[in-house]
């Protein structure tokens, strides 16, 4: 048999190990929550990934049609349970947009302070579990120790550690307790060195760079086309942050605050001076960038929290009183997206003039971020799947609603 020069595409290797259908989840340690990934693998190479969601579906939107607008707040902070405050803020702003309700100055600054602290907590969970996905346990413990401090602060503010229902329509439930601001200041001061430790442990770690550089590369066009938002979109180089470029109703909360949007412009990130530079092996839009964007956003959030505390001290007293349950909503509909830690969390409220909204719709950021996973994981190795899913930082409560 004469084997003439054959075009490599045609020459098919006959050593095909039979393709294995492997189930990763829904009770798998590395899928964040009840996500089931069916992997079609050929040996170690993943041919195709089919995500199955819906294991945590409670149909919160149907319940929204039978409750007064303010009574749905507790349902919103169970969607992204790692950033409850940002969810409450999203729904509160949407209904205020429908009502055209103004919020007093002190409440606005308080909202920025609490939302940014919750963003730090959510990014800490993302960084910690990402270290866990790649095998190093120690950063996970350091991240959760810092997050505990933030949860203690929240517990003193609203009594809850995870599901707060603190930010409501018309302002916030209650003002800060005495001495809270000094404790918050003390936390921020003690938090800076921990960021450097995390960078030392994870970002500049050669093995982590090898495990994440060039893996799961998401091009800007694909990111926009799949509707990815937040750190996932910014890591692909799209300079878009709703706190600066959003609707007036969303940017109104952040008027007067100076901060940087973390997106790579020609090879450098804004204000990344003290932190490790971008290594050469990484490609724009890969897992490493998504991780690094979150680490820099935490620094911006610390700056924002400090500015919010100063504004709060200077603002007149009075944090506004929550909407009365019997207040009728004007007929019409309003849709608003706010910058949640995981991406843009959109809420739509349609009302027919009664106190109960006709339709309450929640658009989840992780829902769109997760839809990219089958595109990113095609042809990677099995060990890369948790790395990619971890870098997208998804929460199943938010996806399944």
């Amino acid at each position, binding site marked *: 048999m004469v084997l003439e020069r054959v075009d490599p595409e045609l020459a098919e290797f006959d050593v095909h190990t039979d393709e294995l259908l492997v189930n990763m989840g829904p009770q798998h340690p590395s899928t964040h929550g009840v996500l089931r990934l069916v992997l079609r693998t050929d040996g170690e190479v993943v041919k195709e990934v089919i995500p199955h*969601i*819906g294991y945590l*579906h409670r*149909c919160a*939107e*149907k319940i929204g049609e039978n409750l007064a607008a303010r009574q749905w707040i507790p349902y919103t902070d169970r969607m992204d349970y790692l950033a409850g405050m940002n969810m409450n803020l999203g729904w509160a702003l949407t209904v205020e*947009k*429908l009502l055209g309700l103004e919020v007093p100055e002190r409440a606005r600054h308080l909202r920025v302070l609490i939302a940014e602290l919750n963003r730090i907590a959510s990014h800490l969970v993302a960084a910690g579990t990402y270290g866990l996905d790649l095998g190093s346990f120690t950063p996970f413990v350091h991240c959760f120790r810092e997050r505990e401090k933030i949860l203690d602060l929240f517990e003193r503010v609203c009594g809850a550690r995870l599901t707060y229902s603190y930010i409501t329509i018309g302002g916030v439930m209650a003002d800060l307790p005495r001495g809270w601001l000094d404790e918050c200041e003390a936390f921020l001061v003690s938090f800076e060195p921990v960021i450097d430790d995390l960078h030392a442990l994870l970002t500049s770690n050669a093995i982590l760079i090898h495990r994440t550089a060039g893996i799961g590369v998401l091009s800007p066009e*694909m990111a*926009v*086309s*799949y*509707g990815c938002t937040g750190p996932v979109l910014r890591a692909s180089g*799209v300079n*878009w942050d709703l706190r600066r*470029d959003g*609707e007036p109703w969303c940017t109104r909360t952040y008027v007067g605050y100076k901060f940087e949007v973390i997106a790579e412009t020609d090879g450098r990130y804004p204000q990344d001076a003290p932190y490790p530079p971008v290594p050469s092996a990484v490609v724009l839009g890969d897992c490493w960038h998504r991780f690094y964007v979150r680490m820099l956003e935490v620094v911006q959030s610390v700056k924002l929290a400090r500015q919010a505390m100063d504004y709060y001290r200077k603002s007149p007293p009075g944090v506004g009183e929550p909407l009365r349950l019997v207040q009728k909503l004007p*007929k*019409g*509909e*309003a*849709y608003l*997206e706010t910058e949640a830690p995981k991406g*843009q969390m*959109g809420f*739509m409220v*349609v009302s*027919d003039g009664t106190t109960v909204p*006709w*339709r309450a*719709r929640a*658009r989840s950021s992780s*829902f*769109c971020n997760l*839809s990219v996973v089958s595109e990113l994981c095609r042809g990677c190795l099995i060990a890369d799947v948790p790395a990619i899913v971890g870098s997208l930082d998804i929460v199943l409560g938010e996806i*399944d*609603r």
Partner: protein
Amino acid sequence: MDTPAILEKLKQNIGSGIAGSNLEAIDPWVEVAPGALPEVCRFLRDEPELRFNMLHCISGVDYLQTDPKKKSEWEPHLEVVYHLSSLVHRHRLVLKVILPRWKDNVEGQLPEVPTVSDIWRTADWHEREVYDLSGVRFQGHPDLRRILCPEDWVGHPLRKDYQMPLEYHGIRGR
């Protein structure tokens, strides 16, 4: 570019597609005929001045007043709402497609809307969710199956006249 200007531009290029609009609403929206939806969307995305490159969300809203005591301002219909925005020009637009609750009013026949999943990839999952929860069939969708409810679930929960099933695989419903 605000919504009236966008509406003007749309009317010039695809006059037939636009079936109405409401510019006074909090989020001004434009109503599009179901048949012309893909053409309008492709124009909105590819037109240089418009460049609506991000589809934020597709939602299904069911307008049917089930409570006899209350009078209903709307005659029963189904709306599919598209929220678009352009990251380039930073403007927003809301498209609406008004559909009868059942296809030519036959109980159980889901209304039809052409898919836009080939224009924006995010529509793929959003349309599956609207099909799953609100009961709208999207023609040309690559893989239209339920996304949140179990595959063999009966009925579409977000419809106003939805009745929770008595039992599901032995689990008591009502």
